[in-house]
């Protein structure tokens, strides 16, 4: 009896979890990578290039630098801003094996939560490590944390995938306005920040507050508690459809798990939001007007400019933030337009070192060692040990970026460095060519020896590798 692919996933359980990564698609990818020509181990030589690549990508590698050099500074940056590189066949094969990325939320609910998160996390690691569109992947990481969703709360896990694929990945270097607006109707967000409970009789301000404080204006953006309450009123009735189609008594019916405007729960009175009067009787337009107001608010572009400048340069810079703020306003909220001046700035070189979060660190190590990985359960275990299991940060502010929050998990990083280099991580290997040489004499010490492994391990465990 043959069972469908989908049934196999549902029945799969733990065995499938592990097998997913080594099944057909994974084996092809591994073989392709094993045969790919790679640059042999070398140290980064030019601090400026190293800094640029460390900040634009998930970690400097000799291969990335070769690409940079062949294209030239400006062209490389432009291509990254456009996310114009062709995705390699091996990565596509691996991603093709992760069905959860393409399934509807309602379908995903039949699958074990752990399996869904496993596949999302697998995709994140693989893309961050292997996608040539590195800047896009860095921005996906940035926005995913900016619009943080805790997948363990309610059914977040099942909605996270669509949110990540359709909203974040779609607009990571594109329109912030579109991203924020779509996010307001995204079931994952409505569930996480409780807006699906926001109704006229019992308003819930959680999403309204975070929309202003974390997503758009920022905490110093000049909104009041009254504004939050008024925004909450505008967003009453913005829910997730939880009824079956047959009981919806409307045509056309709305799919379960998608956005639904419940007019009966909506507070239809007049509201005043950030000085704008929203007349009574607006229905769903009230909330839509709020999104329009906040994405166009002057504080929003300032707040985003500050965050982006900090993310790439590691420091504040009034002048650069002004440029980025201006770029938002002249480009109608285009993210690539905001990021470009940062990448071309002097502040990128002079800014403080930025600590690598666990995902950054692990992917930087994988890239540095030209590792071949399946992004599977074993390597994901390290991501958890290091403190950044993806989509599990409970608060809406996203995983912290400051040193203090991460410096004290140095021990598991050392363990990872050693285990990676000594081949102790299942389905994750480093080729001999990618290991540091012990001797300057060509040919000598070129085999896979413990000494070379140890040298690689100490390089990854080093204090300076913890920073970008």
């Amino acid at each position: 009896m043959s069972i469908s692919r989908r049934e196999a996933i549902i029945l799969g359980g733990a065995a499938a979890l592990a097998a997913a990564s080594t099944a057909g698609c994974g084996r092809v990818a591994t073989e392709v990578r094993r045969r790919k020509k790679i640059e042999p181990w070398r140290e980064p030589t030019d601090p400026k290039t190293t800094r640029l690549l460390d900040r634009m990508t998930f970690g400097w590698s000799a291969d990335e630098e070769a690409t940079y050099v062949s294209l030239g500074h400006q062209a490389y940056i432009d291509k990254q801003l456009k996310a114009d590189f062709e995705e390699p066949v091996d990565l596509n094969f691996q991603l093709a094996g992760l069905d959860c990325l393409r399934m509807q939320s309602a379908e995903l609910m039949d699958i074990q939560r752990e399996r869904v998160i496993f596949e999302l996390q697998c995709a994140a690691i693989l893309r961050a490590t292997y996608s040539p569109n590195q800047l896009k992947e860095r921005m996906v990481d940035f926005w995913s944390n900016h619009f943080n969703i805790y997948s363990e709360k309610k059914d977040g896990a099942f909605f996270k995938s669509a949110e990540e694929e359709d909203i974040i990945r779609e607009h990571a270097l594109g329109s912030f306005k579109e991203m924020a607006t779509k996010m307001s109707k995204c079931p994952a967000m409505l569930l996480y920040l409780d807006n699906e409970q926001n109704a006229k009789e019992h308003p819930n301000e959680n999403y309204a507050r975070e929309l202003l404080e974390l997503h758009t204006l920022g905490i110093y953006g000049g909104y009041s508690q009254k504004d939050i309450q008024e925004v909450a009123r505008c967003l009453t009735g913005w829910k997730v459809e939880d009824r079956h189609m047959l009981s919806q008594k409307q045509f056309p019916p709305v799919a379960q798990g998608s956005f639904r405007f419940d007019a009966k729960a909506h507070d239809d009175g007049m509201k005043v939001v950030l000085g704008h009067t929203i007349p009574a009787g607006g229905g769903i337009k009230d909330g839509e007007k709020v999104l329009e107001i906040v994405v166009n608010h002057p504080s929003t572009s300032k707040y985003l400019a500050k965050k982006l400048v900090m993310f790439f340069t590691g420091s504040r810079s009034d002048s650069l933030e002004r440029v980025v703020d201006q770029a938002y306003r002249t480009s109608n909220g285009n993210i690539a337009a905001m990021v470009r001046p940062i990448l071309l700035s002097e502040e990128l070189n002079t800014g403080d070192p930025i600590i690598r979060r666990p995902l950054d660190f692990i992917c930087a190590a994988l890239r540095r060692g030209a590792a071949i990985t399946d992004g599977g359960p074993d390597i994901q275990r390290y991501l958890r040990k290091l403190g950044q299991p993806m989509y599990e940060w409970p608060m809406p502010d996203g995983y912290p970026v400051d040193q203090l929050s991460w410096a004290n998990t140095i021990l598991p990083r050392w363990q990872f460095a050693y285990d990676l280099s000594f081949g102790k991580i299942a389905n994750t290997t480093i080729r001999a060519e990618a290991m540091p040489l012990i001797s300057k004499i060509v040919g000598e010490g070129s085999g896979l020896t413990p000494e070379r492994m140890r040298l690689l391990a100490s390089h990854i465990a080093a204090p300076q590798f913890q920073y970008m």
Partner: protein
Amino acid sequence: MSRRSALKLGALGLVPWLLSSSALSQVKIDSKRRGHTLVVLFLRGGSDGLNMLVPYNEDAYYRARPSLAIPKPNDARVAENLRGVKVNDHFALHPSLRPLKKWYDQGTMALVHAVGSQDMTRSHFEAMSAMERGASNGISGEPSGWLARYLNKTKSQEDTPLRAVAWANTMPDSLRGAPSPMVVQSINDFQLNTDKDFLEMLKDQYSGHGSQSPSLVHSAGSQTLEALAKIEKLDPKNYKASGGAIYPATNIGQGFREVASLLKSDLGLEIACLEDTGWDSHFAQGGNIGIHANNLNSVATTVDAFLTDLGPKAKEITLIVMTEFGRRVEENASLGTDHGRASVMMAFGDVDGGKIHGDWPGLEKHQLDSVGDLKPVNDYRKVLTQFLAPKMPEIANVWV
């Protein structure tokens, strides 16, 4: 070129900014620790507060619990060691808690009755969720833990890798969202499975480099190496508790011994979370003997050993023993008790001890809530703030 110099040239030579940046503070290895540690023991399942601290002068208690009630301190029909241990004219401790009486008399132990949250569901999940998140009830949307918020508010350069440690299989919700909390089954999990040569390389890389100011990661690394060395020596078989203290061979016994050994090793432990399960006594709970009594005995002997072992260092800790809810006043048909709301909280260390704090709502029918439960008139957040604020002022601001 030697391996060592190859490492130095390659790694450090090209990133001078890392070592000289003024934005990275200078951190001394032997920095001052905060001088106080909070230890939280969570009794999961709902420990029966009415039998922990017995209102022995109230008839209502004995009417409600013909089988489970604890005998009065002066009940001559019962062996003395099986009677309640008199605390005052109103309350007595469960006989299994006798080892803690001397701490109470010394002023090292404080008690509060009728402690609970505003959660009305009587669901383990909801009530624990409320308490671990510092919320009033279980449906609060707040996903981070109360201890996590405290740790975030007070994080500093002086923090060590062992600032917050939980002895559990999974991260307790109270620590969810904290910066770098550790979750261990034993502190010996804090180890490096590598080789001697690699460890030597780490020591080279992470030692302070003379006049150059080390980065935060440098100092975290040094502290980690120091902690590794100390913890290696803390082999349970070799640990000698002070004052003749003997820890029971239970999970919490071993956990507390590790907490004590960490405290004595000055490794910067500020928050320790431990838990004990098996407190959901629906069935055959037992009174002065039985399941609940054994559980209480385990806690009492553990805490007694812990405080004895710490000796004068007990002034540097606050130990809180809490549970998500108490149990129904009336015993049930299975000689157990059903879920209630209010229970007892115990606090040890540098606390206002030797007394029972808070209000007592009473056990008469009109004083109980509509279901027949003791009313949680002492909100757990107020009680925790009362005990912890003197040493941890920020705790007043973590509640949601």
